[in-house]
């Protein structure tokens, strides 16, 4: 199987999942007990308002018709309008998205810095006390919820030391604590993967051979070991984007960082169903596309995987 065939197969799977996920979200909203219109307007709303909103949301049409128009809308990137501010769902998302992207990028940078340093040290000092301490710390980072670590950092760095602002999203200064919070939890898992994949490579004969050839340790590490260890690490980074997307919901809430996570929780509390639906579709689609990109990237990074795919 060549590259083209592999990519086509992955695209078919992607399209299927996009369809299935949006269908599931559609039925979630339409088959739940209770009337969304009533819960948006509250129990005491008068019949006229209920009918008007029902018309506006298209909920009075037969289910099949709603389903078809729902798909037409998705294909046209039209996710409806927010009930709360009447702007389109897309423009709401675009307004909040940059903040989430900044947070994602900075937390990922922090996570990569922490995990490559800690994981490499751990791998080189395998089964020593240093290794155990790093392993224990990464388990702790995995166990500490973002909504606990965040306030702890605020207490320490904002209230006691006064270095960073408590919350808000007015500039770079406001980004640091949220990024450390999210980056720490991301680094937990990544550290283990870095440690395992580097220590696996360290034991391979080519390392011994390279040393025998007299290559410097630095050269061996950066040109040979790291390159081979990258595959599982990149996979994990790719898959961690899911954790990044949902982790940012909690972290943004802790720091009132105005990203799409805050927007999602706010619209859930306001019962702004079109916006909630749009955000869930958007976040899931982004996640699926990233996974798709990770899968395709194997092909270019690893000759071994490429050969395996080509053989099939």
């Amino acid at each position, binding site marked *: 199987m060549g590259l083209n065939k592999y990519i086509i197969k992955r695209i078919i799977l992607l399209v299927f999942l996009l369809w*299935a996920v949006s269908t599931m979200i559609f039925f979630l909203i339409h088959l739940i007990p209770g009337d969304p219109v009533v819960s948006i307007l509250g129990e005491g709303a008068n019949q006229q308002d209920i009918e008007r909103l029902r018309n506006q949301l298209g909920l009075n049409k037969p289910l099949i018709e709603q389903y078809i128009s729902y798909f037409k809308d998705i294909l046209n990137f039209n996710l409806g309008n927010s009930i709360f501010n009447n702007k389109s769902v897309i423009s709401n998302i675009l307004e909040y998205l940059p903040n989430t992207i900044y947070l994602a990028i900075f937390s990922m940078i922090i996570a990569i810095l922490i995990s490559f340093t800690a994981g490499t040290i751990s791998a080189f000092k395998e089964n020593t006390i240093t290794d155990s301490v790093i392993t224990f710390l990464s388990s702790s980072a995995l166990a500490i919820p973002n909504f606990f670590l965040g306030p702890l950092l605020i207490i320490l760095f904002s209230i006691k030391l006064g270095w960073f602002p408590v919350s808000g999203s007015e500039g770079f200064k406001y980004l640091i604590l949220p990024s450390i919070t999210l980056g720490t939890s991301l680094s937990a898992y990544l550290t283990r993967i870095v440690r395992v994949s580097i220590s696996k490579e360290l034991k391979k004969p080519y390392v011994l051979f390279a040393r025998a050839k007299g290559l410097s340790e630095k050269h061996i590490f950066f040109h040979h070991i790291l390159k081979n260890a990258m595959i599982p690490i990149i996979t994990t980074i790719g898959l961690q984007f899911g954790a990044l997307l949902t982790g940012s919901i909690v972290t943004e809430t802790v720091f009132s960082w105005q990203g799409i996570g805050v927007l999602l929780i706010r619209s859930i509390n306001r019962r702004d169903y079109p916006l909630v639906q749009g955000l869930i579709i958007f976040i899931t689609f982004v996640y699926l596309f990233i996974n798709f990109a990770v899968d395709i990237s194997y092909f270019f990074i690893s000759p071994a995987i490429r050969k395996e795919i080509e053989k099939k």
Partner: protein
Amino acid sequence: MKKNNIQLRIGIVLLSIVVLSLIIGYLINGINIEINLEHRLEASSKRFLLGTDELGRDLLSCIIYGAFLSLLTATIVVTISSVFGSSIGMISALSGGIIDTISMRIVDIILSFPGILLAIALVSFFNQGFWAIVFALTFSSWVGYARIVRSEALKHKNSLFIISAKSYNSSFFRIVFSHLLPLSLPLIIVQASLSVSGIILSESSLNFLGIGLKPDIPTLGQLIDSGRGHIFDRSEMIIYPGIILFLIIISFIFIGEGLRKRFEIDL
């Protein structure tokens, strides 16, 4: 099987200490989570050992109540999802064909949602409540068991011992319950113990975000959330429930990892 397993031991000891101190706290202090607005935000005293929260509830009672609620939620979710997921996996593997394809596609679809987003979606479209949370978390966690049990059953389905069991007319149930299921059991146990920490984390996150249980029911997530309003003057409102939550989660991580190593399973 590795015998000397420090992680597993630390996990079990830590969890026992936490649970025991919660029980002792309950026995000494009792549980009183009634809202009492006359006693809002009181400092610690003989009557309220850790003080009160912004609704005038005894903070210690709230923490004990919330911790047990988390453990209860996790127990129910793990039980339902392991039984349901394993059954689907087993049925899928043994029947094959269209049933297998459909159930595995459903698994793929559920796995397409990142992290707790699916649970957030489910909880936000349903009404708030304990069973809504249980349903939402079960919905996203049964798929793990289905995948594992399916692949384990597929591996052994055509083994010699199954064929010979069939040859002397073992019933379908006998093959499943005394041959295939015991082989998958270590995998199910490891998956269950590894998933507990994630479930407790998701449950408390939903409550922290205010889309879980109603705020008059104390949960660790909700306690931390309400403590954020008093971060300047009473940071212990965040720190105490946070530490308990952290200890519960980390002991389950150790237990899960320890069991995984003990059974030498690579999940």
